[in-house]
């Protein structure tokens, strides 16, 4: 019971963190992108770091959004057959597809981590002072979280919801 409470606690904290980060990033994206236009047109030039920063934020928002989508099982699917299947078959299908998704995300996370490590040892920078590996960080983190969520969802639908 204790472990379960503990996990629930982590899950809630993670959810709040993701939500907060998304809101923060979207609002700063809007302000920075608009501010950059003003700088460019009124003062003749934007800030150098803003454009690469905005592009990295697109990657982060994409993965954060996908993480939230996994919470609600809200990913884009084909979903043609399920309307015609019985509840019992659907249950088995959910287990198969859920486990498959979890495994693929785990593989992506693993190779994402290797990619990040390579950038870390090469000490590359996206723009001055910001190492590339920091920007790549969201890839392994995002896919690990999705892998776990797909796994939990397979056996406890609704456990990672809200």
């Amino acid at each position, binding site marked *: 019971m204790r472990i379960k409470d503990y996990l629930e606690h982590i899950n809630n904290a993670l959810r709040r963190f993701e939500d907060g980060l998304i809101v923060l990033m979207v609002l700063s994206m809007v302000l920075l992108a608009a501010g950059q236009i003003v700088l460019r047109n009124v003062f003749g030039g934007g800030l150098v770091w803003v454009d690469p920063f905005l592009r990295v934020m*697109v990657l982060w*928002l*994409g993965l954060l959004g996908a993480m939230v989508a996994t919470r609600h099982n809200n990913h884009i699917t084909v979903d043609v057959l399920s309307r015609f299947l019985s509840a019992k078959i659907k249950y088995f299908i959910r287990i198969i597809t859920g486990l498959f998704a979890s495994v693929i995300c785990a593989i992506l996370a693993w190779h994402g981590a290797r990619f990040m490590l*390579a950038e870390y040892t090469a000490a590359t920078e996206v723009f001055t002072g910001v190492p590339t590996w920091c920007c790549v960080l969201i890839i392994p983190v995002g896919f690990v979280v999705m892998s776990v969520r797909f796994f939990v969802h397979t056996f406890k639908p609704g456990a990672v919801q809200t």
Partner: protein
Amino acid sequence: MSVVISLLLLGLALLGTPLFIVIAASALLGFYSSDIDLSVVLIEFYRLAEMPILLAIPLFTLAGYLLSESKAPQRLVNLSNALLGWMPGGLAVVSLAICAIFTAFTGASGVTIIALGALLYPALTQAGYGQRFSLGLVTTSGSLGLLFAPSLPLILYGVIVQQLGVGSSLTVDDLFLAGALPGLLMVLALSAWSMWTNRGLSREQSDISIAAALRAAIWELPLPFIVLGGIYSGYFAVSEAAAVTALYVLVVEVLIHREIKLGDLSRIIRESMVLVGGILIILGVSLASTNYLIDAEVPVRLFDIMHAYIQDPLFFLLLLNVFLLLLGMMLDIFSALVIMVPLLLPVALGYGIDPLHLGIIFLANMQLGYLTPPVGMNLFIASYRFKVPVMQIYRSTLPFFFILLLTVLVITYWPGLSLYLPGLFATW
């Protein structure tokens, strides 16, 4: 062996595995079988952070979600009704126009039915339009407007074509121009039919004066001018127009109209980013799978096989229409774009089809696919939203379906319709 695996993956996709998982799995398997380090999949994925145009996707999506949560749709309906309500079938035409504008902004067509349907369906039936006509109209309108700037599918098609490096001169601005006339044709055709079938209906008199409606919508009115004027005049890049739009909508709906409470703002931002995440993650993994397909020369081989049987470009276009229609029934537009365009574009180029024209054909067919019985997605969304059996939706949308089918054929076999405006601006 590879055939078995492909079929297996297809099966998993049909059973409801998230599409990005299926695409990622195929990329992983492909690179694995060619003995290439699998981290290449994530290196390709990271290219999401290297394309400036992608910035437009979260920003326009946010603007669309904010607009749909505010009372802007209501103000827009009031204004258009005050302006056009006197015409026979005026409210129907208004509905078509508004849905088209709205879908252009939100991109995802399901949103339009859910956000505007609740507004337009009761308004139409109250004004005396038949239930069947109203249902069909609202369902059809849900995907109208995909061809107008700044719709996300148009942007996404441009991004994919640029990534492929063929038809290299194609820009998103060109696509925005190319979609305008074909999109207009669809709206006009449906409007003409709506006016014709409802010609006997007594004219509804709008109880709101034009001046009052104008005053209410004063803050939303500049929006199309900011977006379209900014882009077409060359003053803004697409992503810049997106930034201005997002900031403008944020200020108007949250600070000026105060219709979106600060507490709701974080929820709306999150919901809009779920859509963005769903699209971008598919795009990211498909960058890897496309890379593999091109390495393996799949599009070239596909063209060789097809060209052995089909020499006539017109016949190819006909097959393309049928194929895309079937595809549009099953796949949402974003996945269809990232999966099929890398395969189709080289083949279409081989038949001498302009990449701009192909994009418009693709989206026009997809739009129709949404309404194609028995499994077109909008049919189910409408059935769910209006709590009507899906069979009744089939019947209601049928006339609209055939009209749109006609326009799709015109768009397909008359390249000039799509290519006239881009050509005009190019020589300008």
